């Protein structure tokens, strides 16, 4: 769908209302990873935490920089898997036998 006449531009991140132009500008300003694009534009910081937009942003990043799409790492996985009410953990009473840890894969860990 061509929105080029729309003042707002094409939205790539609906949660934070980030346009394609903003993403491309961030890349032109030096962003080379999804995390950096996120930090600059807020794309991926909304309720869906990048689930809707990271694919298309990866494609834009690959197109602008020539980095191969399969070399583009996500901005980092963190719990919770989806938005969850604070009371779900704050009021949890069940003792658990061993500490649960969520391993995350991050573009910025060695």
């Amino acid at each position: 769908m061509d929105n080029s006449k729309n003042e707002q531009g094409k939205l790539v991140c609906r949660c934070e209302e980030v346009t394609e132009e903003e993403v491309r500008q961030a890349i032109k300003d030096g962003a080379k990873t999804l995390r950096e694009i996120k930090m600059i534009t807020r794309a991926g910081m909304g309720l869906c935490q990048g689930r809707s937009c990271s694919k298309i942003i990866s494609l834009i990043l690959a197109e602008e920089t020539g980095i191969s799409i399969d070399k583009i790492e996500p901005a980092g996985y963190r719990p919770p898997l989806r938005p969850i009410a604070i009371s779900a953990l704050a009021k949890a009473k069940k003792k658990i036998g061993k500490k649960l840890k969520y391993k995350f894969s991050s573009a910025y860990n060695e």
Partner: protein
Amino acid sequence: MKNTAEIVVIGAGIIGSTITYYLAKEGLDVVLVEQAGFCAGSSGATHCQIGMHNRFPGWGLDLSIKSIEILKDLSNQYDFEYDETGSLLMIDNPSKLEWIEKRREIQFSSGIKSYYLTRKDLDREEPYLSQNIISAVFYPQSVRINSMRLCHALISDARKIGADINLHTNVNDIIVKNRKIQKVKTSNGDIYTHNVINAAGAWATKISNLVGLNIPLNINKGNVIITEKIPKLGIKYKGEIILKDKKGNPIWASNEISELEKEYSVRFVFSQTVHGNCLIGRSGEFSENLYDRDTSYLSIRAILSRAIKFMPILEDVKFIRTFAGLRPYSIDEKPILGPSQTVNGFIVATGHGDKGIGWMSSGKLLVDHLCGRKTFMSIEPFLFDRIENNI
């Protein structure tokens, strides 16, 4: 990447970015090297606030006041969500009122302003707080920023005025000959230089090992929770304070602290960004593993269980993300700034613990000191000598 430099800065967190910015402004030929992206270490995992409620007369306060001055000035040029939120200390234990009043008096003597909010004031202005809060103290001079946007602005500007910025570049070795630095070996090539500034935060020990030194740091891991966007919930920065006994062990100022909260050294702190998301903290665990940035279920649970004791309204708010950061404390909890006396050209800028943002002025202090300029305060308390002589 350039292969020569007057000075190489290692680390693009708040301290490294600040130092690079001021060095570039001095016209020095500076190359910045960072293993990950900008602000990817502790500076990217913080609450981003400078609270005056915990400051007392001394070097810590002086650094914080200067940082706020610098940030306020920079906020006229760059947008990093600089927000003069003030901070609210909540009191829920009447036996601590006298102690808090004593604190206020000492703070006031060095210009830290504060005033009480009574229970009636709270009903009117902070209706979301638990009824267990009997009173609160407001510190108007506290501020919040967005550290990511600040680092990005400082680095972009430094780049415009000639600094060579290299992200996603590992420092593999620093070659020293006849006790003088000769070059830095990176994953993108070598940089010939005689001066290196180690602003690598939690990784500063690793960098110091490359030149045969060993900067001892105590790494403390903290978790933070981010909520969905919600309407403004009163003062955008509030928390509880911890009284410490003579040994430095915390005495919880609150009436009820659970075993889990104690285990994770939870102290409630809440802040709200300009976008409406809230950050909830804070926990602390001693950590040895620099690669362990996991958020653990139990620490998140501990933070949230304490949070709803102070702000029950948060129960129904959804959280969307959690993250963890490493606080690099020096052994005497003072930042370490200054040149090595044994390795010529090796300069240290680390050990800021949980106050990298609050003490970002230390970056300017170091640059002014290195360039022979008049410094806004004495650098003497922070010099690397005091640690180096005891390594």
